[in-house]
């Protein structure tokens, strides 16, 4: 575990951080929690805005936004644009945000065929199963996209998920005002 601290020798204002999972599995958020007790020095320097940790529903003005997951439906687009509008620095966190990841492996299939198979013709479905059709449900996109194909992204942290150490090293550098870099062992795509 890195012994690096966030102590900058003075007490600057706390940075506001928002996080969200779009078309992701929350694995990157779980990996974020793998920074373990280092979350305590982190919390001396940041406070969370919208995040699963706070359960705040909308992102306010923030310094850093962490986006997990790719863009697979209309709500993802909406949320991503909200983050871009409110976050000074936006980070694509993990393989799905970086290149679409596992969900993007449906991209060569027809969306209509997928919906038919999942909800109507697949195994183990109840009789009369239908494709969900409710105005509350966001419409799926034809293809899953990496987040940088929808909004401008400032930094990318690849990995499935990136390790807690990688997330810590990345955030530590960023909070100290440096452009983050990852060395061997921390930079991994799998």
């Amino acid at each position, binding site marked *: 575990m890195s012994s690096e601290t966030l102590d900058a020798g003075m007490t600057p204002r706390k940075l506001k951080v928002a996080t969200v999972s779009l078309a992701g599995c929350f694995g990157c958020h779980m990996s974020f929690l793998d920074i373990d007790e280092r979350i305590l020095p982190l919390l001396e320097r940041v406070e969370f805005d919208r995040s699963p940790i706070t359960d705040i529903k909308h992102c306010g003005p923030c310094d850093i936004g962490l986006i997990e997951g790719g863009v697979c439906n209309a709500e993802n687009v909406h949320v991503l644009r909200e983050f871009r509008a409110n976050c000074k620095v936006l980070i694509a966190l993990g*393989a799905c945000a970086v290149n679409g*990841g596992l969900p*993007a492996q449906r991209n060569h299939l027809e969306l209509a065929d997928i919906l038919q198979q999942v909800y109507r013709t697949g195994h183990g479905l109840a009789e009369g199963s239908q494709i969900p059709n409710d105005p509350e449900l966001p419409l799926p996109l034809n293809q899953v996209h*990496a987040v*940088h194909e929808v909004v401008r992204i400032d930094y990318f942290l690849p990995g499935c998920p990136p390790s807690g150490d990688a997330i810590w090293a990345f955030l530590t550098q960023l909070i100290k005002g440096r452009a983050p*870099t990852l060395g061997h062992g921390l930079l991994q795509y799998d």
Partner: protein
Amino acid sequence: MTSSFLLDGEEVPFTPGQTVMQAASAAGKYIPHLCWHPDFAAHGSCKLCTVKIGGGFATACTTRAAAGQDVENGTEELTAKRRTLLQLLFVEGNHFCPSCEKSGSCVLQASAYEVGMLSPHFDHFYPDRAVDASHPDVLLDFNRCIMCELCVRASREVDGKNVFALSGRGAKSHLIVNSESGRLADTDFAATDRAAEVCPVGVILRKRVGFAVPIGQRDYDARPISQRVVEKLADGEQEAG
């Protein structure tokens, strides 16, 4: 007769007829590459080994070494260009590392680590490419093909079978199997062929051994490709891919 040239300011000896890549490799110097392999004729297609010689760009695998050459390799300028080349390769195919059996042993992935590639930068093509699982011992996943032609060369030159070829032009170029059906099962391809182990990425995969070595313990997980290649050369091993 041995002469020498400068590679990033260090003297590298060569024998007449050697390329810059061959001489550098023999001297234990790493120049990033994908389509070059010491056992096969230079192909010069991936351009990852582009270096600067006397102020001009040249591929190290196709340029003859010459006495007194001043070759730049590890500069930030070249690293940035290599990063762009790799980003283009990543978005042109479907490279989903977490679901690839070759992850950790993949030369494309390891090369991207080497140049600090954090993002694909460009929009993804997400091309529609088939998988050929027809062969009993080998799986072909064309989603990851970078068209280095190493399998083409290995099959033709070593195995004497001519199983693979490139077809199409430009963005439509793709690897094909030389059988009437286009399926690997309908060729005389064998898992013991040289072509079966030369693929630098996860296209040609032997079945039932995918996770024999767990992710995290594979070739380039342990050390960067630059170090691994140099170690292999020092040990007299053949370089994989």
